[in-house]
């Protein structure tokens, strides 16, 4: 875009700071939304006093509270792994933002194998969960971590397979290319070209499956078995406190935001909105994308506060018996339609 004269290191630092600031800002807003919406779903008002109006500063106050707490490591814990786990979790989710385009020419790095990279780094957060569960030296943490591992193995497949169909339809693995494919007109009414996001042009099965699988990937209700407060105390975060706990907390919501960003980029057209020119989208694109992210996050929160947790066997059955066959069918159908038209 601009400022090629700026030294690379400075440019990189600026990019990183902007990305992190934006990311954490959005995450704090999402945490606040979860508190507020869950409260209203339960006929409560939720945060109220902090910050003066609607309790907008509640997540900030909570973060400050966690910063003050003692960082405990159990005697039985595997010290290094225990300390490293939250960073792995957070790094995995933040790394997905490298390839998410927030405008026609605003993207940190437009990788040709964007989707592949996306899936690789998003699985990293589950590795963090597994590390935390294994190293805590606590049976609840261990069961939580192992459940997270089992869940990852089961739900990574529908996730990948759903994206394969998208890649087939778009004809590219690059996320910028996928958004561009959604922006190109599908058919013409008169002289105006009508372009549709993939969710409306044939990927509805993929969209539903992807939402379900990403809920499972994020350990959100109804697939929150690794946390399962009522059975496993807090699952893999049982032994964490203070800053490290807040990193897990942030990681969970950052994961939600990054998954929502992926869903909105791949299925809802990302930064693109019909009727806006590319020059305009360079500036409005981020807002459009954030709007779509908030919509998907709303779905996640809505599902969480409506549905109960499912059983481990139901979890596995859903993935292997329903989602994977559905996505395989979806790939075949998409490929057939692609060849026909």
């Amino acid at each position: 875009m601009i400022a090629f004269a700026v030294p690379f290191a400075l440019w990189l630092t600026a990019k990183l700071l902007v990305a992190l600031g934006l990311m954490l800002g959005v995450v704090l807003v999402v945490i606040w939304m979860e508190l507020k919406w869950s409260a209203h779903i339960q006929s409560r008002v939720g945060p109220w006093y902090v910050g003066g109006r609607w309790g907008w500063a509640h997540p900030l106050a909570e973060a400050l509270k966690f910063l003050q707490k003692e960082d405990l490591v159990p005697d039985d814990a595997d010290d290094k792994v225990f300390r490293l786990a939250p960073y792995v979790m957070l790094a995995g989710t933040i790394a997905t933002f490298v390839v998410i385009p927030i405008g026609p020419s605003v993207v940190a790095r437009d990788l040709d194998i964007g989707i592949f990279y996306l899936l690789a780094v998003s699985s990293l957060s589950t590795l963090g969960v597994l590390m935390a569960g294994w190293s805590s030296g606590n049976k609840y943490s261990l069961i939580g971590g192992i459940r997270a591992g089992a869940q990852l193995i089961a739900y990574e497949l529908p996730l990948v397979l759903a994206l394969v169909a998208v890649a087939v339809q778009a004809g590219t693995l690059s996320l910028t290319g996928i958004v561009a494919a959604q922006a190109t007109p599908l058919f013409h009414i008169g002289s105006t070209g009508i372009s549709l996001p993939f969710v409306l042009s044939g990927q509805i099965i993929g969209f539903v499956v992807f939402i379900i699988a990403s809920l499972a990937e994020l350990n959100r209700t109804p697939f929150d078995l690794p946390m399962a407060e009522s059975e496993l105390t807090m699952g893999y975060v049982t032994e964490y406190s203070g800053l490290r706990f807040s990193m897990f907390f942030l990681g969970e919501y950052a994961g939600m935001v990054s998954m929502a960003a992926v869903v909105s980029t791949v299925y809802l057209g990302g930064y693109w909105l019909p009727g806006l020119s590319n020059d305009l989208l360079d500036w409005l694109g981020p807002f459009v994308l954030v709007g779509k992210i908030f919509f998907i996050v709303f779905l996640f929160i809505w599902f969480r506060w409506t549905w109960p947790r499912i059983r481990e066997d139901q979890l596995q059955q859903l993935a292997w018996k329903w989602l994977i066959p559905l996505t395989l069918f979806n790939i075949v159908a998409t490929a057939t339609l692609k060849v026909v038209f």
Partner: protein
Amino acid sequence: MPIPGIGLAKGLWLTLKALFRKPVTVMWPDEKEELAPRARGVIALSTDNCTSCMLCARECPDWCIYIEAHKVEIPTDKPGGRVRTRNELDRFDIDYGLCMYCGICVEVCPFDALYWSPAHEYGEYKIADLLHDKEKLVEWLGTVPEPPALEK
């Protein structure tokens, strides 16, 4: 046959409706709730009715009632009559830091000296201040609602 998975959709519709409904929260202390007259807020004492029989103190499951009393002789109206005695209450404390609001003392009192009152805003910064003495318990008597009218 019901549509499979319709229950999930019904649940979503229910929570969506709840999301846009006005919350039922009462924003205490800015607004106060109208409590039921039988609400268990605090126990009030009527010293006139108390005979210092100690039944309440002995029935209390966590021993939060402290009673001390001494005997007073009532002089006879006519010379040569028998001198009667009466218990004078010196101390009647309820430790609300201990009380679990079971109401057994109110139930067990044979002379209606103890009453439930819905007043409940007596939080303290120091736990020792939750020990309400006789005077304070008598003060609570003013907050006791009228008993329900007799049936005709």
